[in-house]
Structures are given as C-alpha cells and as structure tokens.
C-alpha cells in the first residue's frame, strides 16, 4: 500500500524536478560518504594533537634486567666453590667493588653503572653470606654517595676505607643489529672477582639477554 502511494506521488513530478531530486540525493550521498572520512580524520587527529604520549619500546636494558641479573649473579657468587669453601673463620676478604664498564651501544648513566654492582653487594649483605663467609664489601669512598643514593641507604659502611684484598668488576657488552625491520641487542654481562695479591680470577659468571624491537628506528 505504501509502495503504491509512493509511485502515485512520484508520477506527476516533472522531469526537471526529478533530475533536481536525483542531483540532491547524489550530493547528499557524496557528502554522507565524505563525512566518515572527515570525522575519521578528526577522530584520528584529536588524540594525537591532544598530546597523547608516544609509545616507547626499546631494546635497551631496563630496571627489570638490573634486578634479574643481580639476583642470578648473587646466587652464582654464593654457590661458587671459592665462596662455599669459606667459613666465618676464614681470613677476611675485603672486596672492593667497581662500577661496570659499558661496552654496549646503549648509554648507561653513572648511577646505574654503580647500581648493578651495588645491588649485587646488597643482596650478599641481606643473605648474611658476607657474615658467614667472612666477606667485607667496600667501594672507592668518593663513590659511596652515588650508590647510597641509588640504594636509598644512609650512613657509610664501617669498613669503607679499608685496603681491599679482592676486586669485583662487571663488563657489559652487546651485539647490535639494526635494519629497516627493527633492532636487536644481544647483551652479555660478565662479572668477575679477582684476587689482588695473585691476580687470580676466583669467580666469574655472566648473564645474557636478547632484546628486539620491530619497526623502523630511523623513519
């Protein structure tokens, strides 16, 4: 019934008016088709120009790596034959810790360099290994404030200024690959404890991790 009515209404309309209506409809349809594009453009733009934070995912070492590597190295150190063979009555080892040496292609700020070794030392202290194995940890006194700040520690360790018998060092290296597809960094972090009297490496271990990111770096 409605269809019939529609036809009945349309028939008397002149050709000129019919063309007018078709043109109007075409314009309206085009405008309607454009609207989503324009609206979409505005929607796309809005969050971006309203200062949305850009996402960052790099191949660099993060704080989680600091925790993981020092946990594993602390465990390895504590379970090494050189340490396991010691008791609280053994001659005291005074171990000087040095900051790690950065041979990666990532910037590692000074406080982070100290934090890697500093946290290792802190784990030993917490685990009472130092007491049980007669170990004393020191840093170059002038560097203590950097570690203290990073570890939120106050005061100065009592043995800080004693002459060391051993040296604990760390060296971080990386193999970096970059391409149009992305970037990858394979890290090798090596720690070693050296007897300063003999030059002997009494403990050594390393921690490895690979990070990769997909996408152009230089776009």
């Amino acid at each position: 019934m409605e269809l019939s009515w529609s036809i009945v209404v349309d028939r008397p309309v002149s050709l000129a008016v019919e063309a007018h209506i078709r043109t109007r409809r075409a314009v309206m349809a085009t405008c309607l088709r454009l609207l989503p594009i324009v609206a979409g453009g505005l929607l796309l733009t809005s969050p971006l120009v309203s200062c949305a934070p850009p996402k960052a995912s790099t191949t660099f070492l993060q704080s989680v790596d600091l925790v993981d590597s020092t946990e594993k190295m602390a465990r390895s150190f504590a379970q090494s034959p050189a340490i396991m063979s010691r008791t609280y009555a053994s001659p005291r080892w005074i171990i000087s810790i040095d900051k790690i040496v950065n041979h990666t292609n990532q910037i590692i700020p000074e406080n982070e360099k100290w934090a890697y070794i500093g946290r290792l030392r802190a784990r030993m202290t917490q685990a009472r290994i130092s007491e049980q194995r007669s170990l004393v940890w020191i840093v170059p006194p002038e560097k203590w404030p950097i570690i203290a700040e990073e570890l939120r520690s106050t005061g100065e360790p009592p043995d800080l200024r004693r002459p060391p018998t051993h040296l604990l060092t760390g060296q971080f290296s990386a193999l970096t690959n970059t391409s149009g597809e992305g970037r990858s960094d394979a890290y090798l972090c090596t720690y070693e404890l050296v007897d300063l009297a003999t030059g002997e490496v009494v403990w050594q271990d390393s921690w490895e991790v690979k990070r990769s990111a997909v996408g152009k770096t230089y776009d």
Partner: protein
Amino acid sequence: MTEFVRGCASRVARLSCLSLASVVATWGATGCESQHSVDPIGAYYRYDFPAARDVLRPKAATRNDDIILNNLRLGLAAMADGEPRESERALGKSFELLSTAGLNADRTTAAVLLYDGVRVWKGEPFEQALAFYWSSALYATLGQWDNARAAAANALFRLTDFGRDMSQEKLARKAARDEEFLDTGYTAVDTDFALGFLMQAIGADRSGAGGSKEQFDAAVRIDPALQGTVEKLRSRDYDTLLLVDFGRGPQKVGTGPDNAIAEFRSRERRRGSLNIAFDGIQIEAAGPTCDVERMAQDHRWNNLEDVRRAKSALGTLLTYGGAIATGVGAYNDSGAAVGAGLGAIALGLLLKAAAAADTRHLEFTPACIYLVPLRLDRPGELRLEVGAAGGPLILPNFRPGTTQAPRAVYLRLHGGDTFAPDWMSAIALQHGNDHTEVPAGDLPWILGGGDVGTPSRARLEAYQRGGQLLDWNERDLFRAYAAQGIALGAGMENREGVDPAPSWRHILEGGTGLFTPMADSLGYKRIMYSPSAAFQPLAP
C-alpha cells in the same frame, strides 16, 4: 540548473570549509606546540641560555609529538650553559626515543589524511645523527668515554643513496612517475659521518673497548683532511679536546607545489677556520670536522617524504579532477557527476591544504662542528675565534687535562649574526666559585662579598683565613643561605609548595640556585665573569 549547481557547490564548499576549520580548530584548541617557538630560539641565539631553558623545560616534560625536538632543544641549551644534569636528562630522553623502533608506525593514516605534523618528530637522518653526536659530546665532557662511544655508535647508521646529483625535487618527480622508485631505486650505503666515527674511536680508545683503529681509519677514508687530527688522536698526543658548534644551521622550508617539498636553506654567511690562540700565541687553525649544511642538503641525509608528496599529488589531482567532473556534470545535466565531482573537490581541498611539508626542524643545529685535540700542558688563556664572526671567546686560566685523562670541553659559538656579549671576551673573574679558590678577604655574595662557591667547611675555613666570619661555624653558613630561600645546586629546590623552576637559575641572575656550571662552559663564563649588583636580602 546552473543555480542549483552553484547552490550545491556552495554547500559542499561550506562543508569543506567547515571540515578544514574543524581541523584547524582542533589543532589550535589542544594546546600542542606551534611549529615555530620563537622565544626560546631567540634567547638561545642571544646567548641567553637560562631564558631558553626556562621556556623549554616545561615543553620538554610534555609528552606530545614534539617531545624529542623539545628535549633536544633543552639538552643543547643546558649543555651550552654548562649544566650537565639537565642536559643529560633531556638528551637521554631524546636518545631513548630516537632509538625506539616504529615510533610513528601507527600514525601513518593520520599523516596521510591530515598533516605530517601529527607524527612524532624524529628529525631528518642528519639531525638524528647529530643528536647522537651531542649525547656523545656530553659524556665526553663528563669523562665518561664508554658512554661517549656508545652514543656515537648509534649515529653510524646506513643511508639510502639514490645516485649522484639527486635533489629532493628530482626524487619527488621520479617518485611521481614510478611508484616503486622510493622503495627500490636506492642503494643502502655506509654513512659518511666522519665526526661520528671520530667520537666512537676516541671513546673506544679511552674506555678500552676495541675497534678504535678501524674507526679512525674510517674517518680518514671519508675525509682525508682529517689525517692530522686523527694522527694526534691515535697517538694520544692531546690533553684537551675542544668540541665547538659554530653558527646557525640550515633552516627547513617548504618549496614547490603546495610547499610540499622540504628543503634546507643556509643561514650562516660567515664560515672559516677555528683559530685558537694559547697565551697570545696562535696554536691552531682548524677546519670544520663536520659541515652540517652539506649534510642537510644531501638527499642521503634527508627523509624520503614519500607520503607527503603522495598527498600533495593526490590533493592536486582530486581538485582538478573534481572541477572537471563538476563542469562536465553541469554541462550534461548529470546530478550524480556534479555531486561526485564536488565531493572530490572537498576531499581534494582538504588533502591539498594538508600537503605542505612538515618544516619542524632543530633550530639549534650549528652550521658546522669543530673537533680539535690540543696539547697545552699547562693552564693558560685560551682564545677562540672563527674568522671575525661574532668576536672572540676568551677562556682565562683554562686548565687542560692530561694525556692519560684528557679534558673535553663543549662550546657554542653563534657566529656573525649574533651580538657577542662583553662577558665572552672578559678576562677578570668577578666571582669566586667551586672551580676557584676564595679570593683573600672575600665573603659569600649573600653577605656582601663576591664569592658564590657552594658552602662547605673548607669554604668557611677559606673565608676565615682571610679574616672573615671568624665566629661562624659550618651550620651558620648553611643557615644563612637557607634563610634567603637559596637552593644548593642547580634545580635542587625540593620544598613542598615551592616552585623549583627558579632554582635552575643562578642567584647572580635572579634565580634561587647556588651552583657552579662546568668549568669554561659558556654558562660559567657568563655567570662568573659578569659584574653583578649587590645581593638584596629577603625582608626579615
């Protein structure tokens, strides 16, 4: 019918205008950066680095599409000012983001449809390489050679080479004819960034990492004129490493149809050797190690801008195509054709308006960079000048490092278009500080003297040796500064409810911070060699 077409055209035009106006309004209302921040740039080129930093600090902390650009600006201003903490933080942020893969990956659609400005600014490849160089330079000045090497290594990425005598415009024309050209028409070539190789080699040599020999070789292979410099560096026959940015770098502008093609234009008229005199004797006339203008104008060091040109071409095509369709439709009395044509015009106008090149660039880039190793052996007066451009910079009582531990110093000279302030050539120290002894009989500036050294027991004893503050103890000295609301250290104000910003500015320059910039930096020279008015204490 003609009137009707006009009516339709008018309505579509209104829709287009409204759409464009909406876009513009959206951009304007959201409070993001405008393309050209004049104030910090003007301040930077007046050697007023503190003013530039004041403006840039909050911008650098805002996470928007200019975050890398603003952090680079802040980092460079702070480095020139001799403030390593702020510089390290800002350049570190830039370094991290520049090394991030796919930062703009999910923004392509927005860039195509609207405007490249919605992409996170990462700069042209040459700007990225320089950003890594400046991080390297900063760590060199801090004596952290391992980090200097690490930062420089990132600057040595490969480049896309489309052949000799290629310009941005030629590239665009070829790309317009051949859609595959930008993806397949290039060869990936090794970088020719000799400065990057030099910094990597110096850092490797000084930090014990391997590879310095090959890196020095690479620098000389790229630029044989560096042979003398490299020999000095290889043999470690230097105790001082000068890293000098000179002049105003090139400006990025839009050219061609719809200003769609980006081009870098030279701004520095005066160039030449960096002349260095030590205690009145000319010891060096060093040529530029890096010609930044040449890099900027080399297509290998520029982005491909394929999306931009595609947009421009599409916008133009749609505009003309739409106009033709409208005309034909009107002539044939075809409403559908008219509608489609008008729609295309609207879209074309929208895209055409968005086709202009993104001309954001790092305005603090120099025209050229000098890397000069020197063997001085003793303290003395160092004088630097590039031709007669901008007057000399004199560093009285300059203290070199040693051949085992050389001292790197970063300096920013603006060139002939910038008025050289008096302090640049001043030789009389006005204020004792952390790098100097307390002049005999002097007092802290806040107590009527001229000394602005950080309070300490040693400093107090020095005042007392000169017959001053005899009945004071260390705590009294600290209290005197605290009573005036002075923060010890740059940016160290941390009291609740107190704006920390003024503490980045020295008390001698109207701020609330007491600190000593890095020795022989421009900030140090400006603050310590400029006369100042007497301290005005807070009302009790």
